[in-house]
């Protein structure tokens, strides 16, 4: 094992991998600090570039982007009160107040160091927990794997969505998309309408690019992009003092714990983690009354949380093949393009690659810290790049990226169709992440379901006679019905309380 850990380190510190990590960090800072561009969008734009790269180089590139994108989001949040990414929303509360008081440099410095702390904390949890989960998951058979994929899908569809029904419809739609192509068990064509290109099914890459990038371009073209103000004050004192950081350690630990925990729950994601960590930090702080008025702890908590989310979200993705958020869903896709199937077998068959992921994440966090602290003033200028310049370049990237997949424009058409679907889904309140996840996990779901029923000779009780599968199915059912029963239960409890008080 030690030999593989060392070999993985040697692999990651190869010059091309270090360059990939640096490029990923710089691109992530650009994406993160530009309001309106999300990390998911950055990921899908880089994805086509990874086809020809070795797996480790590709993962260095994407993890660099993941780590720095979260940090980059705080730059516009602090300076302009516009979160660069949804995960930087809570940072804006105190960060912007600090900037208004002329302490923008201090706020940015705290954000970067807290991000590093959160990233390393998340990574430590990943390294400690992932192998244990993978070991347990190795014992899973087809019924357990089916129930697990079902659980991941229902959690994503129901957790954190405004409308559970719309989340589930989005997921079912993704599964319908995945029924196009050759049937996974018998190889008979389904819904191909005689189109040869459809026989291999609809590739998730054009779908991903379309769902994330095209709606963004359409919003820009429709003229709904807000005009961004310019930050004119001078930024000084970015490098934080050790004394100041020491004071924030407790807050950063709380933020990182919340971030890792929330990140590991599929569907919860960064925005929930940052507001929860902000709330917890406020509750335990001696300066709780100063929160919202420019308190450094109010920056440290959400920033450590949003980077810790990355480590947490990688746990279910690497060990079970269930992504925790849209970004890890794209990472999962990137690994599948490389011929690697995340899940317990990844740990058994390619342990060296798993260690490479750990090392690459560490390198990404170190690079993020060094590059961001030394170039922060440059990223302030990026805020001035208008969308009228960015959007046409993004559109070109999308067309060329989907063409590069198979050197055919068929996928470009698929990408554009998904883009239009994604645009209208967003407009009418349908979340796109469940659809994306269903597209990625759909084939596994069908394969494990049919395999289980073959094993049981068509007896569906196989899913409830296997205890682990039963637990997953119960949680799935609960996650599906809980949004419906929770408000009803709350009302009932309120009524009981009222009656109690009345008596």
């Amino acid at each position, binding site marked *: 094992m030690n030999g593989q850990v060392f070999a993985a380190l040697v692999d990651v510190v190869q010059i091309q991998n270090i360059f990939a990590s640096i490029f990923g960090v710089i691109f992530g800072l650009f994406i993160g600090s530009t309001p309106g561009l999300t990390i998911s969008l950055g990921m899908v734009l880089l994805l086509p570039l990874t086809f020809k790269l070795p797996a480790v180089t590709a993962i260095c590139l994407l993890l660099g982007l993941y780590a720095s994108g979260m940090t980059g989001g705080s730059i516009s949040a602090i300076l302009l009160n516009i979160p660069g990414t949804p995960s930087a929303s809570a940072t804006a509360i105190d960060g912007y107040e600090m900037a208004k008081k002329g302490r923008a440099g201090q706020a940015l410095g705290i954000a970067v160091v807290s991000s590093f702390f959160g990233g390393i904390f998340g990574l430590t949890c990943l390294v400690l927990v992932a192998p244990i989960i993978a070991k347990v998951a190795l014992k899973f058979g087809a019924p357990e794997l089916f129930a697990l994929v079902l659980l991941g899908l229902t959690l994503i569809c129901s957790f954190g969505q405004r409308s559970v029904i719309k989340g589930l419809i989005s997921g079912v739609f993704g599964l319908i998309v995945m029924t196009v192509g050759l049937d996974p068990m018998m190889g008979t064509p*389904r819904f191909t309408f005689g189109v040869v290109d459809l026989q291999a099914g609809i590739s998730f890459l054009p779908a991903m690019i379309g769902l994330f990038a095209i709606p963004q371009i359409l919003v820009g073209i429709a003229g709904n992009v807000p005009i961004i103000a310019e930050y004119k004050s001078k930024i000084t004192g970015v490098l934080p003092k050790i004394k100041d950081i020491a004071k924030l350690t407790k807050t950063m630990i709380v933020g990182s714990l919340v971030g890792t925990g929330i990140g590991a729950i599929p569907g919860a994601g960064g925005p929930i983690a940052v507001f929860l960590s902000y709330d917890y930090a406020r509750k335990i702080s001696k300066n709780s009354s100063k929160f919202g008025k420019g308190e450094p702890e109010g920056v440290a908590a959400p920033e450590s949380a949003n980077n810790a989310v990355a480590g947490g979200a990688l746990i279910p993705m690497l060990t079970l093949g269930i992504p925790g958020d849209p970004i890890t869903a794209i990472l999962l896709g990137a690994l599948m393009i490389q011929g690697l199937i995340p899940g317990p077998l990844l740990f058994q068959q390619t342990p060296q690659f798993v260690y490479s992921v750990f090392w690459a994440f560490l390198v990404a966090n170190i690079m993020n810290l060094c590059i961001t602290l030394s170039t922060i003033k440059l990223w302030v200028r990026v805020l001035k790049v208008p969308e009228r310049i960015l959007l046409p370049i993004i559109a070109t990237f999308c067309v060329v990226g989907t063409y590069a997949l198979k050197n055919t424009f068929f996928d470009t058409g698929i990408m554009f169709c998904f883009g239009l679907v994604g645009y209208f889904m967003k*407009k009418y*309140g349908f979340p796109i992440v469940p659809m994306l996840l269903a597209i990625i996990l759909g084939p596994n779901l069908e394969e494990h379901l049919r395999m289980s029923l073959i094993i049981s000779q068509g007896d569906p009780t196989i899913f409830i006679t296997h205890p682990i599968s039963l637990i997953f199915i119960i949680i799935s059912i609960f996650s599906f019905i809980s949004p419906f029963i929770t408000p009803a239960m709350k009302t009932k409890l309120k009524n009981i309380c009222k009656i109690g008080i009345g008596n």
Partner: protein
Amino acid sequence: MKKINIIISTVLIIFSGFYAFLTTNLPTRNLPNTLGITFMPWVLVICLLGLSILLLFNTIFRGTKEEYNYHISLKEGSGILSLTAIVFLYVKAMNVFGYLLITPIFVAILMLICGSRKWKEIVIISIVGSFGVYFFFQKIFQVLLPDGAIF
């Protein structure tokens, strides 16, 4: 939002019916102790139909607290149509003239649509941007881009 939810759920119910119709037309090929290729599509038909009916009933009887601007403005509609047309023409033209010749024109048109009015900016960005993407894909990552049929 109530009205649009009712329309969406009705469209989804019709789509479920269409998907069910397509499923009935799938070839049947049964092997012993296996489920046919129509098994998963039927499961999905039931799920989609059930959820669409649930959305419809939920909207009618419980109302909705969702608030979205569901109207498509003239600018939005023309933006969607123009982008669709431009991407279609871009792809067709790239097959004939190749990436390097056609992409600067594509970028320039998109910049104009996005509100860019400075000619110098349009010319510089469209050329530098197109060559930048070309350099990344073709030279660094060795992804071949179309040369065009006439070259």
